[in-house]
């Protein structure tokens, strides 16, 4: 502070370019600001550089296939014809299937932990849920191969066929490896993400909303339905989209269970293939230029989808944390 009272010396020592960095007279502040701004911009540069690099690597594939890359179903590394539609289909359907299975359970866990569970139980269960998120992907995959897939083939799939077999969704041979098993393993993996974020969101709901509902004579269920959920909805949607983001990018476990077949089938028992899986499977051994370019274009597609979803999730989470109470309507 004493240096502020002695401005002439500072002015003399301040290099002429410093004012360009900011309005502050203190050179330390200006340097700090510009350095941290540089770090922040670095992230932006990194993302753009990655996208540019992938687009650059995919150039040959753009030229060869154009938009046909996204609409073609044929993936033939020997014949050098590449189409990404089965992978896009597999990624989107397996992720949506995972959401369908995981969201009700995850929201149930979150509501129980934040609204209903006795206090002594909240910590240990919350901890266990978060522990699930720390299990490595390959462990889920191995468990899937040796436990889940045989269980699906011998118990779950025959049961589904005998009850709902009239639907094309549940037809075809039950092999245990396919879209359904892939969706189930993804659901298990995104469950902790969705439930722990949802729990945070529910805990951020102001207590006076609950108290107000209770004062009006609401039951526990009504407090949650009328008081808590409408307020938390954007945040919960954000949690679900974060889970979806994880499902879209998941590679190892789903590769081990989905059957890795680039085909579009109406049956959930049939094998499928995801964008992340084909990258993990084929990149290391690909040596033809066009094959590498096609894989680069797939990674670009995956990158775009994931980025888009994360942006949407961010916007939704911001909306709830800004605290505009939607109120109970």
């Amino acid at each position: 502070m004493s240096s502020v009272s002695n401005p002439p010396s500072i002015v003399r020592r301040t290099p002429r370019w410093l004012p360009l960095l900011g309005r502050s007279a203190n050179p330390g502040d200006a340097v700090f600001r510009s350095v941290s701004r540089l770090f922040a911009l670095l992230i932006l540069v990194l993302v753009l550089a990655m996208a540019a690099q992938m687009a650059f690597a995919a150039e040959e594939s753009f030229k060869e296939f154009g938009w046909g890359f996204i609409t073609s179903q044929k993936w033939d590394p020997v014949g050098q014809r590449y189409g990404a539609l089965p992978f896009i289909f597999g990624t989107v359907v397996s992720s949506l299937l995972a959401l369908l299975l995981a969201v009700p359970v995850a929201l149930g866990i979150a509501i129980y932990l934040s609204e209903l569970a006795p206090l002594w139980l909240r910590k240990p269960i919350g901890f266990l849920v978060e522990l699930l998120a720390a299990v490595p992907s390959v462990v889920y995959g191995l468990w899937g191969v040796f436990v889940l897939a045989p269980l699906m083939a011998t118990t779950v799939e025959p049961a589904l066929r005998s009850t709902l077999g009239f639907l094309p969704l549940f037809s075809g041979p039950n092999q245990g490896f396919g879209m359904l098993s892939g969706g189930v393993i993804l659901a298990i993996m995104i469950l902790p993400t969705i439930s722990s974020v949802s729990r945070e969101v529910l805990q951020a709901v102001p207590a006076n909303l609950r108290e107000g509902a209770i004062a009006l004579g609401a039951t526990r269920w009504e407090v949650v339905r009328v008081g808590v959920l409408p307020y938390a909805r954007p945040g919960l949607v954000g949690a679900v989209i974060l889970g979806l983001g994880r499902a879209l990018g998941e590679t190892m476990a789903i590769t081990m269970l989905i059957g890795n077949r680039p085909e579009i089938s109406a049956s959930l028992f049939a094998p499928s293939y995801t964008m992340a899986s084909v990258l993990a499977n084929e990149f290391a051994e690909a040596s033809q230029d066009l094959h590498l370019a096609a894989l680069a274009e797939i990674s670009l597609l995956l990158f775009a989808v994931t980025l888009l979803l994360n942006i949407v999730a961010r916007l939704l989470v911001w909306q709830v944390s800004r605290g505009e109470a939607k109120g109970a309507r």
Partner: protein
Amino acid sequence: MCARALFWIAALVVSLVGCRGVDPDGSVGGVVNLNGAGATFPFPLYSKWTFEYYRQHPTVKINYQSIGSGGGIRQLLAETVDFGATDAPMTADERRKAPRTIHHIPATLGAVAVAYNLPSVPTLRLSSETLSAIYLGEITSWNDPRIAEVNPGIALPEQGITVVYRSDGSGTTAVFSDYLAKVSPRWKEQVGAGKSLRWPKGLGAKGNEGVSGQVKTTAGAIGYLELAYVHTAKLQVVALKNRSGEFITPSVKAVTAAASGVKLPESLTTSITDSASPGAYPIASYSYLLVYEDHPKSAKAAALASFLLWSLRDGQRFAEKLHYAPLPEEVVTQVEARVKQLTTGGKPALP
């Protein structure tokens, strides 16, 4: 102040460079580091080799990364490694990208075993026709008369066949599809041969461990994997009919037999699937190390050539225990002659 900072930076740079002082011949303080990258299939053998070689020759450190044949070839072409390794020979396209001549050095032999899961059938025989028909999706049940024909006296169950293939690009798939393309014109026309394929039928599993897992947990499954894996996973193995009409289960001896009947051409690369030699197992292949004919660094060139000579003689002893087949004698002699022709800056690499 600025000048002083510059001085310290300069001193730091000089000391860092000084420590790592790389001689122009490629050695560092008398120790030669050789870097290689490539195929995963021979990795257990190569890591044994580099370990043993370093024990016997402490001035040569060899670092091999099993990043896949494709990656190994890319790194060799970019000259970021001293040698590469691949199961399938480089394609004409890849050779064209090479800045200088690259030689294939046969290093070992491997086999692809066909495993199945039928607890009631302890031994199963298949011919090339039945195997290709199963993978083409033409035979879909184990009690198909075409399978029964080659398995006289064996009760085959009425069970659907689950076909399992490797989903990740691999030399194993390249060898297996090379065999199918040789024995079945329809396979050649509809599918072809390569590290990644458009499979007509089946489920894709990642890696040898993935295939062995799927075959093990799925009744009625059939899959192909490296020979070493069927031993560790204790899977049932198919006896395949070879060109001489014998049914052969894969073994180290049957693989060497497959190679010994096939003469190596000038390129030192050849396919030994569907070998006509007696006692040969039909799905076998060489695995190659890749080196530039001329390595610009003299110390590295000499160390690499000496290591290659060692691997051809002493190194072969380690193969069998790890389920790789030793190279036949006549192949060793032929490859040795090629290694001795390697150069550095136009002069012979070996003293």
